[in-house]
Every structure is written in C-alpha cells, then in structure tokens.
C-alpha cells in the first residue's frame, strides 16, 4: 500500500529525541501545501503516541505507518 502513495517530502529524523520529531514535522508541514504528503522516518519509540496526538491536534492525518526494524515511517497528509 505504501508504494501507491505519492510522497512530496521525506524527512530523516532518526536519532532525534522528544520533542524534536514533532517540532521538526510541524515546522515542515507548515511549509507544505494542503493535500501534500510528508514521510517522517524516526527511531523515537514515543513517536507512535506523539505523531497521532500531534496529527489529531493540528488537524492533519497519518495515512500510513511502516515499521522497518527500529525505525518507523509515518506518512502524514496535510489537511489544513
């Protein structure tokens, strides 16, 4: 399924610790257009709780999560 999604921006956030992953993602999403997709790759285990919480609060959507070993890719669609 992940292959079907058109990705506009990819961010490598591996190694960054709380709160940097959400800080960086929120800054990046601000620069993007509505409907564009950002892929954020992180190794922060807290991200599995933090990214959905951030998406819900900021009104954006996580359309897919792909786990690859210690890292996870979050596919984030900008909705507003």
């Amino acid at each position, binding site marked *: 399924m992940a292959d079907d999604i058109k990705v506009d921006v990819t961010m490598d956030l591996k190694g960054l610790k709380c709160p940097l992953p*959400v800080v960086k993602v*929120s800054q990046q999403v601000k620069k993007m257009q509505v409907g564009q997709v950002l892929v954020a790759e992180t190794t922060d285990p807290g991200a599995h709780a933090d990214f959905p*919480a951030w998406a819900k609060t900021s009104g954006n959507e996580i359309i897919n999560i792909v786990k690859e070993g210690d890292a996870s890719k979050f596919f984030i669609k900008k909705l507003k």
Partner: protein
Amino acid sequence: MDIQKALSDLQAQMQELRDGTQNKLSMVVFSGDLDRLLASFVIANGAVAMGMEVVMFFTFWATPALRDKKKKGKGKDFFGKMFGFMLPKGPSKVTLSKMNMGGMGTGMMKYLMKKKNIQSLDEMIALAGELGVKMYVCEMSMDLMGLKHEEMIDYPDLQFVGVAKFLEEAGSSKIQLFI
C-alpha cells in the same frame, strides 16, 4: 421568564468564554534545577509543535538560570555581588535536584544526554527562541537577587515584567503550569 432572552444571554456568555481562552500555554518556571528546566523546555517546544502559543514566566530560582556566563552586571551592591557569586551563572551551570553528588551526578547526566542525542538545555533554549516562545522574567526576582538586565542571555523575545502581566497571559490560556 423570557426564554428568548435567556438563550441569547447564554449565547453571549458562551462566546465570551470562547474568545477569552486562546490556544496558549502559560508556564511559571520557579525552579532553577536542571531537571525541571529541561522538562519546562521540552513541554514548551512540544507545545509550539502542537500549534500553541507559549509563554514562560521565570521567577525566583529560575531567574539566575537565564544569566549569560560571558556577561557581567554593573553597579551591584554587596548582597547583589554575593548572590551573583553563589547562584548558578546561566543554563550550563544549573544542577540536578537529585543525585547531584557535588556535580558528579549532573556531569554524568549531561554525558548521558549527549550520548543519547538529547538536546542540552542551551540547545533547547535556542530552539525555543527560534520557535517564538515568549520569555517573561520576573522583575522582582531580578531586583531581589541583585541581577541586572544586561547580564541575561540574548533571547529574541525576552521581557522583564511583573506578576500582572503573567496573570493576564495565564487567564487567557488553555493550560497553566507551575514548574
């Protein structure tokens, strides 16, 4: 009783409540301990990511933690000099509230933070500045401890204020914290 009037009164009150509360976090940073300061800045920077406006009010022991180690306050009296000497000189000099062990514990914690790629307090403060976190510094604490404006860190949005300014911000905030 006029139902129509009661309803419109209620609507007006609701609107007032809605307008009065902004998507804002107000924090009193009272502690000058490294651990509590780290927690304060993680929350502050995280809150900006969550789309909130953030105001930090530094008072009492947190005030000297915002000194710049390279700067000097001019014209201090005896007590001011004593306080200046005894209080930590800036973010890199604050210590843990527990397990400090004469500085060994704090040193070990800083080493671990670096190893685990966790931002230092200095880096967190710089990030807060970039993100537009507002810093208010309690003028009374400055005066009490004999601290001078010119010896504080360079920060984009730092103001010296009284308690009323903080209360105004806290009153219109969604979340208020005391750390």
